C-alpha cells in the first residue's frame, strides 16, 4: 500500500509517523486472521445457542449460549471458584506428564538407537498404543490406592507414546557423523548423551511433549468423571447434576483456554530447543 500517495500531509510528519504506522500494520497483520477465526467460532456458538433456545425439545439447555455462559464464567472468576478445579486438574496432568516423560524419553532414545529393540517393541507398543487409556480405568482403580493415582496413571499411559516415538524419531535423524566425530574426540557414553544426543533431539522431544500434552488434557476430563471430587472433569459432571448448564459451558470454556495455553507453552519450548539458525 502506498501511504505517501493517499495522505496529503507534509513528508516529515509522515516520516515521523512511519514507525508507528509500521507497528500498527504489523499488529494488524499478526492479529487479523486469528481474530477472524475467534469471531467465526463465536458466531457459530451464538447461532447454536439461538437454535437451541428456539426449539421446544432443547429449550431447557438454552443457557449453553454465549450470553449465560460468559456471565457464569465471569462469576466463576470473580468468586475464585474456578481456581480450585484448575489446580487439581493441572496437578494430575503435571504428574502424569512427568511420568510419561521420565519413561518415554529414555525408552525413545533406546528404540531410536537400537534397531533390534525397535523391531522387538513394534507390535506390542503399537497394540498398547491403540487401546484407549480409559479402557484401563477399571484396572487402574483396582491397582492404585487413590483415585488421584489412578488418574495420573491413565494420563501417563496416554502421554507416553507420543513422547516415546517422537524421541525415537529424533534419535534416528541424528547425523551419524556427529557420533563419529564425538567418538573420535574421545567422548564416553555420558558425553555422547549429554553433548551430542540430547541437544540433537531436544526439538523432537518437545514436539512429542506437545502432542502428549494434547492427549493428556483430553484424557483428563473423562478420567475425572469418575470417583474424584475435584478437577475440571468433576466440575462439569457436577454442573450437569445440578442442571447449571451455564456453569457447565463456562467450565468447557476454561478447559479450552487452559488447553490452548498449555499448547502455546509447548510451542515456545519447541522453538527455544531448536538448534536451527533463525531466518
Amino acid at each position, binding site marked *: 500500500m502506498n501511504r505517501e500517495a493517499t495522505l496529503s500531509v507534509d513528508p516529515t510528519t509522515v516520516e515521523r509517523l512511519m514507525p508507528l504506522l509500521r507497528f500498527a500494520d504489523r499488529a494488524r497483520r499478526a492479529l487479523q486472521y486469528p481474530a477472524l477465526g475467534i469471531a467465526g467460532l463465536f458466531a457459530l456458538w451464538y447461532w447454536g445457542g439461538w437454535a437451541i433456545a428456539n426449539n421446544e425439545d432443547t429449550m431447557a439447555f438454552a443457557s449453553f449460549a454465549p450470553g449465560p455462559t460468559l456471565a457464569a464464567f465471569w462469576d466463576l472468576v470473580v468468586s475464585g471458584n474456578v481456581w480450585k478445579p484448575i489446580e487439581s486438574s493441572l496437578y494430575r496432568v503435571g504428574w502424569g506428564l512427568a511420568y510419561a516423560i521420565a519413561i518415554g524419553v529414555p525408552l525413545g532414545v533406546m528404540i531410536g538407537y537400537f534397531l533390534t529393540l525397535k523391531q522387538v517393541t513394534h507390535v506390542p507398543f503399537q497394540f498398547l498404543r491403540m487401546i484407549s487409556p480409559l479402557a484401563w480405568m477399571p484396572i487402574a482403580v483396582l491397582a492404585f490406592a487413590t483415585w488421584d493415582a489412578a488418574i495420573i496413571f491413565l494420563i501417563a499411559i496416554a502421554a507416553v507414546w507420543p513422547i516415546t516415538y517422537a524421541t525415537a524419531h529424533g534419535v534416528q535423524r541424528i*547425523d551419524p*557423523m*556427529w557420533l*563419529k*566425530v*564425538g*567418538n*573420535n*574426540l*574421545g*567422548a*564416553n557414553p555420558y*558425553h555422547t548423551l549429554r*553433548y*551430542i544426543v540430547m*541437544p*540433537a533431539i531436544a526439538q523432537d522431544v518437545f514436539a512429542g511433549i506437545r502432542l502428549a500434552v494434547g492427549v493428556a488434557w483430553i484424557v483428563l476430563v473423562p478420567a475425572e468423571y469418575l470417583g474424584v471430587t475435584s478437577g475440571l472433569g468433576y466440575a462439569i459432571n457436577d454442573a450437569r447434576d445440578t442442571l447449571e448448564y451455564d456453569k457447565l459451558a463456562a467450565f468447557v470454556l476454561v478447559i479450552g483456554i487452559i488447553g490452548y495455553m498449555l499448547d502455546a507453552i509447548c510451542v515456545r519450548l519447541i522453538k527455544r530447543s531448536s*538448534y*536451527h*539458525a533463525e531466518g
Partner: protein
Amino acid sequence: MGAAISIDYITHHYPGQEAPTLKDIQVNIAPGETVALIGQSGCGKSTLLHMLAGLLMPSDGCVRINGHQVIKPSPRWNMMFQKPSLYPWMTVRKNASLGLIFQGRKRDMRERIDQLLETVGLTDKAEVNVQSLSGGQQQRVALARSLATDPELLLLDEPFSALDAFTRVALQDEVTRLARERGISVVFVTHDIEEAVAMADRVLVMGSNPGTITAELSIEIDHPRDRNSQAFVDRKAELMGYFGATRSPAAAPEAAGSETASPETEDEGQATEPTTSESRARVRAA
C-alpha cells in the same frame, strides 16, 4: 612430538565381499612426517585411514602408534573429515573445546582455545553459532577442534575437497605449517594430485582390487612450497605419470586427453576405466 606409525601387513575384508579391500599394506611413518594416500575411489584409502584412527579394526594385521596397537579412537590421533561436522547447537568456542571437555581438561581451556582460534584466524567469531560460518571457516573450526587436544597424529579424510579453490589452497598451506610447527605427524587421503604434492613429504599411490600400495614418491621440496616452481611442477607431472602407467593401454589416449585439459577431474574419469593389476605391480616393482 609427532607419532611414529607402523602399519603392519594389514589385510581387510568387508563382510559379504569376496576380494579383500586391502591386502598386505606395510608402511612405516616417521614422527613428524606428512604422508599422502592417493588413489582412485574405492581403493580402500579411506578404509586404511579409519584403521589408523581406531574407528575400524582390520581383519588381519595391525596399526601401531609409538609401538602401541591401535584398538580404539583416541584424542591423541585425531581425524578430520570431508565435512566439518560441527555441532550446530554450539558456538565456535564450544565446538573447538569439545575434545578438552571430553578429556576432562577444563583447566586453562579458555586460554588454550583463544590461542587456537587466533591460530586459525577465528578470534572474532569465538562466540558465534557455527551455522553462520562459511564452509572454509567451519573447516577451520574443525581444525582447531582437532588441534585442541595436542594430537601426535592428524588424520585427514579429504578435508578440503568440498571447499572452493582459494580456501582450499589457504587451508592446505595452513595445516602443513601448523603440523610442521608442532611436529605433528599427518596422514591424509586425497584425490587431488596438487594437494598431495603441496602438503606431503611422501606420497603413497594406491591401486584397487585388492587395495595395495602400488608406488611411492618422496617429495623433497622446502616449505613453504611454491606451486609454480619447477620442482613442484615436475613432482606433479611425475605423480600423474604413476596414474598414467596404471591405465590399461586401450583407455590411455582418451584419458590422457582429459588429463591435460583438467587434472582435477582426472581421477573421476579414471575410476570407471578397467585397469589390470599386472600393470600396477610393475610400477610397485619399479
